[in-house]
């Protein structure tokens, strides 16, 4: 029906769809990794420096890479930090929520979104030690999420890629 060109197109489309789904799994993994790195920097800054929260977030952002998922996390942290620097009457939670709308992160899911909203609420109350503890607890949670996401990215991602290629091949053969 479609001939060889059409069959090849089906195969390519199936492979592409599979790779897209695989990349989504990887996106989440990379985003979680970037957050874990950001939390590590933030924890160190909280321990070693005594910065206003806006500066803390901006300096944390400057410690991240400028490409990929890290760049997206960087942008969100910078947006939050600069918001409370320019409008100190904003709470940290309000600034973060605005940044979530303005700075999306590929692959981000509700689970880590919940953890981050909790963290940014905890960062605006309590002593320095309590805030540091909140960041350490968040790092632990993100560490577990990273491992789960890595495993899913490897296993499920491969599965998606293979299923996509296979599905496209079968469709191509069926419509040849």
């Amino acid at each position, binding site marked *: 029906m479609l001939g060889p060109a059409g069959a090849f197109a089906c195969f390519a489309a199936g492979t592409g769809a599979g790779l897209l789904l695989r990349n989504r799994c990887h996106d989440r993994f990379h985003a979680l990794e970037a957050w874990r790195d950001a939390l590590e920097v933030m924890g160190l800054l909280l321990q070693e420096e*005594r910065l206003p*929260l*806006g500066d803390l977030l901006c300096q944390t952002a400057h410690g991240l890479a400028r490409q990929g998922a890290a760049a997206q996390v960087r942008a969100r942290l910078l947006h939050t930090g600069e918001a409370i620097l*320019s409008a*100190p*009457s904003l709470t940290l939670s309000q600034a973060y929520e605005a940044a979530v709308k303005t700075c999306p992160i590929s692959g981000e899911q509700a689970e880590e979104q919940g953890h981050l909203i909790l963290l940014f609420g905890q960062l605006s109350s309590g002593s320095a030690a309590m805030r540091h503890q909140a960041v350490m607890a968040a790092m632990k949670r993100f560490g577990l999420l990273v491992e789960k996401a890595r495993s899913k990215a490897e296993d499920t991602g491969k599965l998606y890629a293979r299923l996509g290629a296979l599905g496209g091949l079968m469709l191509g053969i069926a419509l040849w």
Partner: protein
Amino acid sequence: MTWQETVNFLSLCLPRSVAKTIAALPAGEAREIRVRANRPVRIVAASGDKICSLVATQEQVNAIAESLSEHALYARADEQRHGYVTLRGGHRMGLCGRVIAQGGNIRALREISSLCVRIAGQWPGTADPVMPYLLDEAGRVRSMLVVGLPGTGKTTLLRDVCRQLSDGGLRMAMVDERSELAAMSRGVPQLDVGENTDVLDGAAKDVGLRWLLRGMGPHAMVTDEMGGMADAQAVLEAAQNGVGVITSVHGGDIETLAHRSALYHLMQHQVFSLYVLMDPNSTGKVMGVYDGQRQLILHTYGGNA
């Protein structure tokens, strides 16, 4: 920080109705902002108190304190234990609330119930009455002690002395323990302390004076609110090294200074060649200038000689 910059900063941090009241006052008129839980906000102005319509809840008082400190209250635990925090621009925010104490020491302050922002001002010319007496025949800066009650303008005078000496070409160094003299923000003084001034921000006075003496080669050093024997010893060392020290102390008169052991120690060594007494009935006015033997040498403004 100019008055307009101060108003802009306060407008960002305070509820709109309070910011509007302050902005409506003439430049420099507002002296204090007092916020108390479940009470109307008050602006203390030179022409009298202005009562705002806003009645702040305890949560709002807490939020205002966080906002004024630019979300840095948690990082200023040491300052909070002394009862106040210095804001951007050199303004001082006093805090009241529930104290968490341990073994007689204050560990933390919680549930902030009231705050008082004392608005810093830069009044060029405050030091004019004392400037003619600050340099000796050889052009060296004399050590000077400024005495005054709280709110009489000691810090303002010190800042202006530093500015004038610095702009006159002398190398000045400043230990700004509470960030009120120069109000450093990201390494830049928000208040004018002179072109030729090095500022050590946040350091304890005794450590800072020695640091500057060793590293910055100043002609004179300025620091505010001299405290106990550790501070006095550092001042003595500086004076013995030929560097003038200009500092201040709380007090209502010159005569009773010798009752304080730290000052007595310095008087024994004749460290201060000049004493300045601030007028208790106004802000930024010199009432009298005294020589090293605490004899009145100069005019008075207001008060009696």
